[in-house]
């Protein structure tokens, strides 16, 4: 049972990390643009802070 709990905890943490990375790399920018277009400036600025600095590809320095 202990092994199972540890394994599932690792899976849960991993899923959280993956979703966070996807949100920061690919969702935050378009979402902040959408908020800006619909007049929600504060939300747009908050979401914009979450976005990842990189262009989204780990294989290249860009």
């Amino acid at each position, binding site marked *: 049972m202990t092994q199972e709990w540890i394994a599932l905890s*690792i899976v849960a943490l991993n899923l959280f990390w993956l979703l966070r990375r996807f949100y920061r790399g690919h969702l935050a920018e378009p979402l902040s643009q959408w908020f800006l277009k619909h007049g929600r400036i504060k939300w747009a600025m908050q979401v914009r802070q979450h976005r990842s600095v990189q262009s989204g*590809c780990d*294989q290249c320095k860009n």
Partner: protein
Amino acid sequence: MNETQSLQKVSAQKGSSQVRAKAPVLKTIALAGNPNCGKTALFNAITGGRAKVGNYPGVTVERKEGRVRTPSGVELRIVDLPGTYSLDAKTPDEIITRDVLFGVDERVEKSPDLLIAVADATQLERNLGLVLELRKLGRPIVLALNMMDIAEQRGLDLDLEVLSQELGVPIVPTVAPKQQGVSALLLAVEKKLDDEALAIPVAIFQSTPDEIRNRFSEVDRILNLATRKKSSPTVWTDRLDRIVLHPVWGSLILFCVFGLMFQTIFNWAEIPKEWIESQVQGLGQLVDQLMAPGPLKSLLTDGVISGVGSVIVFLPQISLLFLFILFLEDCGYMPRAAFLMDKWMGKVGLHGRAFIPLLSSFACAVPGIMATRTIENRRDRLTTILVAPLMTCSARLPVYSMLIAAFIPNREVIGPFRLQGLVMFGLYLAGIFAALGVAMLLRSTVFKGPKPMLLMELPTYKWPDAKSIALGLFERARLFVARAGTVILSISILLWFLSSYPRPPQGAVEPAISYSYAGKIGQGLEPLVKPIGFNWKIAVALIPSFAAREVMVGSLATVYAVGDQKEGATELLGDRLARDWSLATALSLLVWYILACQCLSTLAVTRRETNSWRWPAVMLIYMTTLAYLGSFVTYQLAMYLGWG
């Protein structure tokens, strides 16, 4: 008030927060010059490689800014402007440079206090035209004559005093990669900073053909006066180009160079690859011995070690691939290779400037797509963006290597060329021809237009710099390992969970994986992929690999490891697949990988560069359709030939 009281008053004033010394105004220095003149290398040499990188607002043009302190302690802000051939701007890059130099919008970018015009000393006939235009701006200018070492090697002898007099600007010779001339340049900048700038109206820079002709006549006149001895590029570079660019011999050399490249990727990488494989297997066996059976042990062996280990083994091949690419780029051969391909590019309507983005896409499509900013025509740019992902990127290499090693015999074909290396070369060629085919279709239908004029600038040959190649190689290897340790590890863990839960019911007869979430998803997708020869395990592994291509190897490893009934199995993935798949399935998957759009980052950068969701959607749909059709034809043909 006596003297003591006065001094007390002064010292109180000095200590008071009300009395503040004025902060010195930071001067802005802009680097401007033709593309490929070494501007960025000079920028890095001046700022020590410490730059803030961002974007100009509203456009996707990159903006680089750094700081430097001159020898006498003056702090300067250095801005690296995009390269431009003329202030008569056409592309987004050139428009940004022109607007910054004219100070069109001070909110976007403060107009520079001084310009460092960077010119390639080996190409002065082309570079000085821009310098003459910059002179008309009325701002203080210092001319950095870059690549002086190569110019001197070729025998060029310039009278810098005469050149400086004729141009009316101070000149500093530099060799940016070796950081030579940087201190002298900063001193010259300091001296020139006191000169006043004059405002020049924008209207002056709409060049007529006569003005352009006069400008280059002026360049010729100045160079005739200032050149004591002309350079002799015919010593070896032109002689070499007569062979390398020959339509027949050049094509043969191209074939041999790339054939040998892929051959060595297989041969030289074998020993380090086997060593890494043995270490990965050893680690799996160690965990198997030390831990009691259970989900955590299964996660570590079947998920983490299988998933990540199956990708890490390709590090030697990735490193060799990039070693060749960096070497060929650095010595100046790659543009010659692209020049030989230009004939075919022109026939399909691809713009001459498309060769750099397509060349970059051999490493990764993301910088390739970003490099299309130099293409002024929107139709040409979109065509290049849409076909760039078809160029075989480095992420495909682990999949190609794994399948070729498992299914293609390593027998000799001719001379040093063996079948595996030739098949790899063939896959790269297939990607190129697919890109050309799609470009031809796009240019004759959706993006119909006049055939663009092909114009290419070939950089000079030079001995590759071992240090920069080593640094580039280390960076690539580090990025590959980092990706394996982050995205691939993460997806392997997720897939392990999906392949292991829910547990099979009591009295189940099917393999446990069939009852899992992954099994159910795979079985649901199987009818869709059966016509192209894929089984449900491939279907499951394909889903996460839409995010990133190389994830496929780790995903397959995890799914097969979990599905394998033997406790503690550490069989290599290639051996498992060779047992489970037919040659027809392997070929079908290879064709799928040549054509499918399996990179979330590519779609994301396409959305950013086109400022629209339409074009990434078009890219995803057309490439998936093409991949499905290609795999279908390949699989059915292979089955017909009895390879099933």
